[in-house]
């Protein structure tokens, strides 16, 4: 027996090494298979068993301090160059950026009204909106080193408040989610990894789906029913239903639509990610979501509103000044030959007086239709206190036909404000 082991010592060691690793793999896969769906599998594998977690901890502890040191050194050199040496055109860029900030503040204040209206409506409909309340900036210090595994390592961990399943974003778009957290480092699963998953919605067509990476490292929305409306260039946003990413964050744009080879009626929508996943430097980890804006965001909004208020007041003053100048230059509509009204006759509180109605010329041959002739004059009676409105009242007389005096006739026969009297019409 001893001679067997000594003779085949190399093969025995090889067999043992392979056996231990195969058993380890079998245990890991068995645990992953406890979940039913692929998404569940991804979730299960995100919580490693203790021995696996220990191996990851050892690997991370051995590698990340060196990566941190290298990153610190290169970043420091780059900062010295960018911050102290290469400062050409900085003033011009600063001025341009300031203009951009002012313009964006105005746009923000304008859009804020719509946003608040949307919030009110959502509140009425009992929707719960989540805002990014607190983020932790972190530096990407390393990767997995394998094209089969798309993860990156951050220089922040449990000490900075990071926890598994927190969303990781950049200002351009989403990046991934925190998978494993150690004291001073954390592993982030990128959205283009095959085991990742996120709920997304296409901006225009409002088609919802699940985002995950394909074998080539491109994020794609999988298992969608064929839809001709989905075209290249359409934006894709987070849907907010996965309890990780807040709603409305940029994911990417549709690059192409490919038919599912296994199921012909389904399509996969390949995306161009909004964030540059191949070259990540600094990311933000969303550590807290709230139903209100954070103090920093609120201060920014207030500044925008104040700026917009000042701009609006200045614009209003400018408009009034221009109107006054225009009024002076334009010819007046008032008749310069018209007699001026007596000064002091009009009091500020008086009601406006109706203009005089021209009287018709006297008829050469008066008949019964002549306004001033016959008994018509009896029917129209002036009343100084008559209201301005002219009311046509049907006249009722005993045995007489019903007659209506039109208002125009009543007005024509006398002064405005007259009205007919009952029994006045023959």
């Amino acid at each position, binding site marked *: 027996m001893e001679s067997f082991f000594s003779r085949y010592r190399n093969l025995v060691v090889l067999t043992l090494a*392979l056996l231990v*690793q195969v058993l380890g*793999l079998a245990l*890991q896969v068995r645990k992953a298979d406890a979940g039913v769906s692929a998404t569940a599998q991804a979730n299960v594998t995100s919580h490693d068993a203790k021995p696996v977690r220990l191996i990851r901890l050892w*690997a991370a502890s051995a590698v990340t301090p*060196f990566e941190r040191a290298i990153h610190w050194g290169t970043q420091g050199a780059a900062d010295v160059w960018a911050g102290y040496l290469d400062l050409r055109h900085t003033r011009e860029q600063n001025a341009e950026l300031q203009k951009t900030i002012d313009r964006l503040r105005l746009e923000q204040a304008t859009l804020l009204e719509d946003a608040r209206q949307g919030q009110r409506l959502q509140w009425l409909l009992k929707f719960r909106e989540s805002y990014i309340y607190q983020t932790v900036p972190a530096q990407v210090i390393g*990767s997995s080193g394998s094209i089969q595994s798309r993860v990156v390592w951050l220089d922040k961990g449990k000490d900075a408040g990071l926890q598994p399943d927190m969303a990781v974003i950049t200002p351009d778009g989403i990046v991934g989610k925190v998978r494993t957290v150690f004291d001073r480092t954390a592993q982030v699963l990128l959205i283009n990894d095959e085991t990742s998953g996120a709920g997304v919605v296409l901006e225009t067509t409002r088609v919802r789906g699940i985002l995950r990476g394909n074998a080539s490292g491109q994020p794609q929305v999988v298992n969608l029913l064929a839809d001709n409306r989905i075209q290249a260039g359409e934006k894709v946003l987070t849907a907010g239903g996965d309890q990780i990413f807040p709603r409305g964050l940029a994911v990417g744009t549709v690059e192409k639509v490919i038919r599912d080879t296994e199921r012909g009626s389904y399509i996969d929508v390949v995306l161009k990610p909004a964030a540059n996943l191949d070259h990540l430097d600094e990311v933000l980890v969303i550590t807290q979501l709230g139903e209100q804006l954070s103090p920093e965001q609120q201060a920014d909004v207030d500044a925008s509103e104040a700026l917009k208020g000042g701009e609006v007041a200045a614009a209003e003053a400018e408009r009034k000044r221009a109107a006054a100048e225009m009024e002076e230059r334009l010819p007046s509509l008032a008749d310069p030959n018209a007699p001026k009204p007596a000064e002091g006759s009009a009091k500020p509180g008086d009601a406006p007086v109706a203009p005089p109605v021209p009287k018709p010329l006297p008829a050469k041959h008066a008949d019964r239709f002549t306004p001033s002739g016959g008994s018509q004059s009896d029917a129209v009676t002036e009343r100084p206190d008559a209201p301005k409105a002219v009311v046509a009242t049907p006249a009722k007389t005993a045995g007489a036909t019903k007659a209506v005096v039109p208002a125009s006739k009543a007005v024509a026969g006398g002064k405005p404000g007259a009205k007919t009297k009952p029994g006045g019409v023959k």
Partner: protein
Amino acid sequence: MAVLTSDYRRELEIRRYPLAVYVLVPLLALVLQAWLPRLPVVGRFAYFDLPLLVTVYFALGRRNPIHGTLLGAVLGIGQDGLTQGAIGIWGIANTICGFLAASIGIRVVVENHTIRMMLTFGFTLLAGGIAFFVTRILLGLSYDWNWLGEILKAAGNAVIGLGLYPLLDRTQARD
């Protein structure tokens, strides 16, 4: 003549290195493998596998299958520990490559750069094939096998080895 026996020849050509080299070089390989793909230029052409390269180098130099097996296992598991996948995929691949490299090193003169290049090329392809087998067949997971990518990776490893192996040769202990 004693000098012509296989035992004497093997004893003569076994390379030994200081302990610091055994520790630092594999560690540096892991660190660079994880860090270099992040660089803007290098990241686009990251066709290399430094831990495997180091495994093959030490296995060929030491000519000890047990040493090659264990070094490959440790480095492969270290590689797996930095990914999000199952631990053991690259561990198995590097274990087998380390064993085979050491076994071949006993029988073949490996001081020749061309032979070392060809061996590195072959072992890189073999490691990719083993990883594909373990992932796709044993675990039933998807694996993007890209012939061009694997050949480029093997070629990259061979070229890097051409420059790296002579540098590492200088670190071996002298009696």
